[in-house]
């Protein structure tokens, strides 16, 4: 993350500028900040901004549900590292954004959200399409502001981008009352941005303490997560892995940091992690935790997680250090710099390294599934291999999400777009649209299920309107598969509301939206299906029928430690 310059925070004298309305300042400021694309949906309170958008260099992407605007902006941010922008009107427009805002918050994604609001004089009177979106979003934003002075619109937006993108990234909401948008102001206040010196540098004492722990460890494990890419430390972690040979595991959000074939990379840990990864962590005597937050999906039962391990915890956010697990060495600082300075030389861990490598081979996934039906794990592996380094997966939520994490190969962490912290169904299609627009040269595959796609299926219209080259892989098991699996194993097979027996023909639905589509019934059709998907120049949907009885393995049951893995 680029450090912001340290400059004073006092407001300057009003800047000489043409007399513009607040709405025109919104558009002009976004243009000045280099924003090229915003996802949105118009409405009454935000109409002045839409009026000002006409003739702007900003490309506005009209979605069909505001939630999709937020998800698409989120995905653009994950791919580019810059804040995505979404726009909606007051009332239901704003509330429809909330799931997308919460999703960005939970995964620390930089986003700037602009919401229209009723005129200032009506605020608090239960006016038409008035909701207190500022109050509603307080728990799920990094920061938020209601702009009361049109002269401050520009400075507020500028500051919002800096806040969203600095430190631990996150969403910033700006609520814009209609009278503020309509008022004309002859000048704008240029508030200097808040000072931000960038990540602090770990002290020599902390580095020495960390290296001492590493030098004496016999079973160290590097445990890395979403914070690695956010810190711009992907290469630093790869270098550390290569330099030390320390066995390494990744959270869901940490996938793609390590090259998947790196010998000391053991894969994903946690609830649906691999056995080799979970065993390594559970037996470790030292965890080097980089950009992770000890989330329950990764740790299982927390007090049984890595029970014998000392902890080195490195994160940009000091509030994460010690939140769930105390660290022996806690470093709130730049991850790349910290790892670069940790050069312990020879580590006496060859037996441990060999054991972990052997387990990786022993517990490798078996893709030889019986029958002739499509085997989703195998399909996903083949698809990601065929797409190669251009592969970007935009996942929905459910069994398919876990299969993507387990079986796809990611060249970089920005290639794996998944709603990790919130687990929001409906993310996949709008995220695929946002990603494909942000990186038109990539092979963006939305991997979704029959449950998830229905949550934002209207965005097929958006994909068609803009000719977005998103390839939709719909794995249809006619059920809410992950819920069904839990009911099967943890609720005595008392299946409740998971049967989607009445799904439409999704290929027909896609064609009705004007999108090329085809259906895949058997395993022998998979190679051609992959070829057709990857060759498509515009949006395309592959409707793949899979066995409803297929489950995700391994699985750590709720309340258990990561050694209590259930397998098929």
């Amino acid at each position, binding site marked *: 993350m680029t450090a912001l310059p340290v400059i004073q925070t006092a407001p300057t004298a009003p800047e000489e500028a043409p007399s513009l309305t607040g709405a025109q300042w919104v558009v002009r400021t976004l243009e000045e900040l280099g924003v090229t694309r915003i996802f949105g949906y118009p409405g009454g309170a935000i109409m002045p901004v839409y009026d000002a958008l006409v003739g702007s260099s900003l490309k506005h992407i009209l979605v069909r549900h505001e939630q999709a605007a937020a998800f698409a902006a989120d995905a653009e941010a994950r791919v580019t590292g810059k804040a995505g922008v979404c726009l909606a009107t007051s009332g239901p427009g704003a509330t429809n954004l909330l799931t997308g805002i919460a999703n960005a918050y939970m995964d620390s994604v930089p986003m700037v959200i602009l919401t229209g609001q009723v005129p200032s004089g009506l605020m608090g009177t239960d006016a038409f399409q008035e909701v207190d979106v500022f*109050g509603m979003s*307080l*728990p799920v934003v990094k920061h938020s502001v*209601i702009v009361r002075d049109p002269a401050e619109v520009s400075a507020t937006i500028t500051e919002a981008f800096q806040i969203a993108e600095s430190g631990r990234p996150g969403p910033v909401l700006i609520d814009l009352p209609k009278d503020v948008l309509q008022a004309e102001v002859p000048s704008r206040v240029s508030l200097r941005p808040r000072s931000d010196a960038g990540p602090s540098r770990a002290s020599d004492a902390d580095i020495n303490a960390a290296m001492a722990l590493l030098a004496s460890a016999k079973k160290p494990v590097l445990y890395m997560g979403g914070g690695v890419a956010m810190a711009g430390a992907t290469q630093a972690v790869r270098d550390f892995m290569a330099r030390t040979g320390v066995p390494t595991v990744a959270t869901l959000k940490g996938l793609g940091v390590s090259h998947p074939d790196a010998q000391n990379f053991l894969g994903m840990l946690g609830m649906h992690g691999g056995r080799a990864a979970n065993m390594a962590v559970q037996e470790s005597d030292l965890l080097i935790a980089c950009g992770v937050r000890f989330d329950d999906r990764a740790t299982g039962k927390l007090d049984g997680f890595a029970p014998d391990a000392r902890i080195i915890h490195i994160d940009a956010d*000091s*509030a994460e250090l*010690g*939140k769930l697990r105390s660290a022996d060495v806690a470093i709130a600082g730049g991850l790349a710099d910290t790892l670069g300075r940790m050069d312990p030389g020879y580590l006496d861990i060859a037996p441990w390294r060999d054991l972990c490598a052997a387990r990786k081979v022993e517990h490798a996934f078996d893709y030889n599934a019986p029958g002739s039906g499509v085997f989703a794990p195998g399909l996903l592996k083949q698809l990601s291999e065929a797409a190669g380094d251009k592969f970007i997966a935009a996942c929905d939520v459910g069994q398919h999400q876990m299969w993507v994490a387990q079986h796809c190969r990611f060249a970089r962490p920005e290639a794996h777009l998944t709603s990790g912290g919130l687990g929001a169904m409906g993310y996949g299609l709008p995220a695929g649209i946002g990603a494909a627009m942000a990186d038109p040269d990539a092979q963006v595959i939305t991997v979704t299920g029959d449950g998830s796609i229905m949550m934002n299926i209207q965005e097929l219209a958006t994909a068609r309107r803009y000719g977005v080259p998103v390839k939709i892989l719909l794995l249809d098991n006619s059920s809410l598969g992950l819920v069904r699996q839990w009911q099967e194993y943890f609720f005595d097979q008392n299946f409740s509301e998971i049967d989607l027996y009445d799904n439409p023909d999704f290929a027909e639905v896609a064609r009705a939206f004007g999108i090329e589509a085809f259906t895949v019934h058997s395993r022998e059709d998979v190679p051609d299906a992959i070829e057709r998907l990857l060759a498509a120049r515009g949006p395309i949907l592959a409707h793949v029928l899979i066995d409803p009885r297929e489950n995700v393995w391994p699985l750590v049951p709720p309340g258990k430690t990561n050694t209590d893995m259930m397998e098929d």
Partner: protein
Amino acid sequence: MSPMLRVELAQSEGALTRLIGLVERRGYSIRALDMTPGADGAATAMITVDPRNAGRRIETLERQIERLFDVIAVSAMPDAHAIAATSQGGMGCRPRA
């Protein structure tokens, strides 16, 4: 034993709501709150809290509060007694007897 937090924050719109909401949703109930306006548009809030769950560390809450952009400074006193509401210039809030 009720920890106490001393928070200096900018009196911008929503700042106090954001602070109190954070304290509550991070697992602490608020036993007492006293807020005193200061200079330059800032105010000082003294908040006495009780953790709802065992194992919550006041140091973690302190750092979470420190992340808020309206917060100028925060310090936690893990062993402080509950404070009495001030009678002058403060916005006192105590639980009913």
